[in-house]
């Protein structure tokens, strides 16, 4: 641990030129070095970056990976994603608690090891999984959890838990030694090879407008979830007035069950940077940012190495690919553990070193984005598709898929399937074909697009994966026979309650109320009226929330009640007017203890 906090903070601030927008980097460094950002540290950061103390405290209190109270030098974050849960995460959690002698949320008495839950960390196909500081540990069993605990208690470092990765110098080999990419099906867009620079050179041979026209002609829609046409977005950003423009790659990948961006960044980062570079050419940007979720910190060295190589190849930096006047470089901004930072305007706020809360829209980022300049935010996969479009031509790209959904889509498949992992498929695949492909024919439910997406049962398995039917950012969770869909909905509501940014009441409060009522039903204390209450409440939250999170967070309940009604009704008690949610024995427990006598039951 560095000895002098003040010197440490001044050094970090100096590295970033005292730039206020790098606040997140500075406090992240403090957190990493000192295990927390103390009150004193917040004052020093405020001074060093010339911001008000409250802004620093606002940031530190906002993000899950920052804390004002001391945490252990080692923080174990066990993913509590449903995919991990159905593969035995709870037994793993119990083993950690037992072996470390602490409960979740606690720190060992010597202050060295902290144990926490964390939402999905994008290792759903090899769960249960945990992050030990930045080191991912996959395929956990109770035995493995005890072994990890034993090593950590004995003073070993997180990297000692993955000796093969620790002893590997090559950055990409190191990532491979930590996690499996698990690519089950390669398609022609994302996982096909392309020599670095090929698409960029093709783009530079024409005008920026020609690049935009090509991407528009391909009918490429954004792969991050909302499906906005990429060419149109670039055109807006190009036409918007501004002395500087930015390209941002959204690698926040927080939707539970999504891990395809992790695999793209591991296996084909060149294609992503290729896409970012031609986007920069198209819109007229000189700077690009990859916003990488904190959970993927272990990818950073690998990505930095690829960026460095591209600089030496002349594909980044001054006069990209020899084109005088086209300067472009990319930096990596690591987040700090907040799902909402995947929402593009919240992402921009976060990249500016603030609390990652969504902005009011309009104005949209294409006109007022990063540092209030026109900005195109695109998903990792979208950049890959765009690079392929420019390389092979729009017609080659759009000849696969459906009329409205062109090209291929990466699916991150997890849950009750024989073959979890990554699949690059053509749009238009039916859910039945999908289930045959992944070995999940006996599924009772498929969660398409994560909890904020759609959950369907067998009656709808003839529907298709496409923007015009079942849209997905990539998350495909399969639930097999015997899974309780009410339990699944309750888990997803935990996620949204945890991840609501708290700005607006319908989302901040509404999701808590929804969760409370779902848990009541799950505990067998629900009545039919609770279902009606939930339906009204879900509508209110969806209609009244300020951003996409709250507008979709009730979906697990909405689709549950629509498509899995019998499962919900099976939990309900009779409608006799007596509210089973009231537990008299629990309500009397205090009095029994105080009075020292049992209640008299009539």
């Amino acid at each position, binding site marked *: 641990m560095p000895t002098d906090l003040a010197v440490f903070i001044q050094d970090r601030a100096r590295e970033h030129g005292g730039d206020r927008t790098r606040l997140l980097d500075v406090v992240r460094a403090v957190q990493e070095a000192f295990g927390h950002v103390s009150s004193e540290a917040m004052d020093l950061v405020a001074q060093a970056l010339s911001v008000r103390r409250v802004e620093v405290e606002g940031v530190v209190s906002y993000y899950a990976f920052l804390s004002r109270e001391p945490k252990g030098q080692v923080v174990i974050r066990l993913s509590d994603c449903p995919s991990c849960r159905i593969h035995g995460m709870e037994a793993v959690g119990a083993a950690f608690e037992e072996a470390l002698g602490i409960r979740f949320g606690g720190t060992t008495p010597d202050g060295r090891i902290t144990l926490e839950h964390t939402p999905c960390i994008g290792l759903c196909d090899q769960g249960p999984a945990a992050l030990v500081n930045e080191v991912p540990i996959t395929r956990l069993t109770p035995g493995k959890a005890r072994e990890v605990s034993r090593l950590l208690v004995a003073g070993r470092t997180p990297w000692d838990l993955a000796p093969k990765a620790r002893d590997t110098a090559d950055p990409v080999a190191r990532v491979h030694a930590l996690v499996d990419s698990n690519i089950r099906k390669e398609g022609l867009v994302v996982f096909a090879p392309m020599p670095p620079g090929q698409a960029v050179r093709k783009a530079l041979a024409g005008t920026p407008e020609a690049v935009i026209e090509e991407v528009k002609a391909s009918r490429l829609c954004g792969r991050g979830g909302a499906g906005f046409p990429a060419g149109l977005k670039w055109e807006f950003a190009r036409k918007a007035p501004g002395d500087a423009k930015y390209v941002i790659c959204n690698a926040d990948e927080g939707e539970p069950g999504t891990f395809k961006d992790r695999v793209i960044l591991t296996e084909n980062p060149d294609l992503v940077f290729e896409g970012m570079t031609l986007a920069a050419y198209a819109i007229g940007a000189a700077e690009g940012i990859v916003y990488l979720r904190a959970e993927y910190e272990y990818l950073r060295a690998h990505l930095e190495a690829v960026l460095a190589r591209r600089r030496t190849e002349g594909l980044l930096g001054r006069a990209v690919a020899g084109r005088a006047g086209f300067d472009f470089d990319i930096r990596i901004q690591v987040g700090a553990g907040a799902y909402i930072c995947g929402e593009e305007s919240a992402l921009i706020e976060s990249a500016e070193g603030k609390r990652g809360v969504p902005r009011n829209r309009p104005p949209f980022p294409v006109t007022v984005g990063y540092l209030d300049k026109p900005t195109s935010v695109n998903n990792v996969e979208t950049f890959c598709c765009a690079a392929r479009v420019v390389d092979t031509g729009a017609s080659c790209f759009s000849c696969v898929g459906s009329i409205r959904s062109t090209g291929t889509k990466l699916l991150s498949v997890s849950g009750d399937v024989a073959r979890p992992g990554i699949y690059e498929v053509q749009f238009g695949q039916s859910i039945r074909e999908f289930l045959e492909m992944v070995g999940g024919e006996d599924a009772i439910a498929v969660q398409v697009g994560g909890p904020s997406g759609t959950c369907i049962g067998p009656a709808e398995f003839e529907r298709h994966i496409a923007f015009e039917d079942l849209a997905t950012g990539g998350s495909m969770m399969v639930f097999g026979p015997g899974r309780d869909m009410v339990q699944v909905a309750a888990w997803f509501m935990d996620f949204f309650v945890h991840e609501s940014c708290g700005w607006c009441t319908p989302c901040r409060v509404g999701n808590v109320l929804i969760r409370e009522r779902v848990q009541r039903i799950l505990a067998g204390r629900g009545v039919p009226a609770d279902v009606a209450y939930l339906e009204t409440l879900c509508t209110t939250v969806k209609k009244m929330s300020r951003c996409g999170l709250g507008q979709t967070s009730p979906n697990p309940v909405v689709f549950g009640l629509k498509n899995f009604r019998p499962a919900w009704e099976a939990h309900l008690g009779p409608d006799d*007017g*007596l*509210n089973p949610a*009231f537990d008299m024995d*629990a*309500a*009397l427990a*205090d*009095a029994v203890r105080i009075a020292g006598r049992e209640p008299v039951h009539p």
Partner: protein
Amino acid sequence: MDKPKIATASLAGCFGCHMSLLDIDERILKLIELVDFDKSPIDDLKTFTGRCRVGLVEGGCANQENVEVLRDFRKHCDVLVALGDCATMGGLPAMRNGIPLRECLEEAYRDGLTVHNPSGTIPNDPEIPLLLDKVRPLSDVVKVDVFLPGCPPPADAIWEAVTALLEGRAPNLTYDQLKYD
């Protein structure tokens, strides 16, 4: 044909809502033409004699007996009315909800400034119903059909509500009957 029956109870309330019921003045004569009183402090009937059309319950649930009386009302009444703010939301008694039960008892029986209790004992006769950890509004415990706000609701509001419910229609309360400032 038998007259419809009405039942009333005061749980964790101050009887103020019942006083307001009596404030219907001479209309009480009309009321007993319309209905028979079943279990109620008004006729001092302790147990239900049969099914009731309307049950008026004042006060929330502060102890086990309140819960049992309320459940009995729910079982016997077609329409259950939460009469007044205590019944609707817990009201004044619910002010203790933020304080642990033991502290409430100690303050009330031992430590309070106006308490004279040299032995320091806290009453604990088996006849005394045990207190709930928190005071609950009626709707936490049973399904409530009609909420009549006010502390207490004005007599005219009670009259309108009761006569409407006996006629099988929704009460039509004027702005004045729902305005309390």
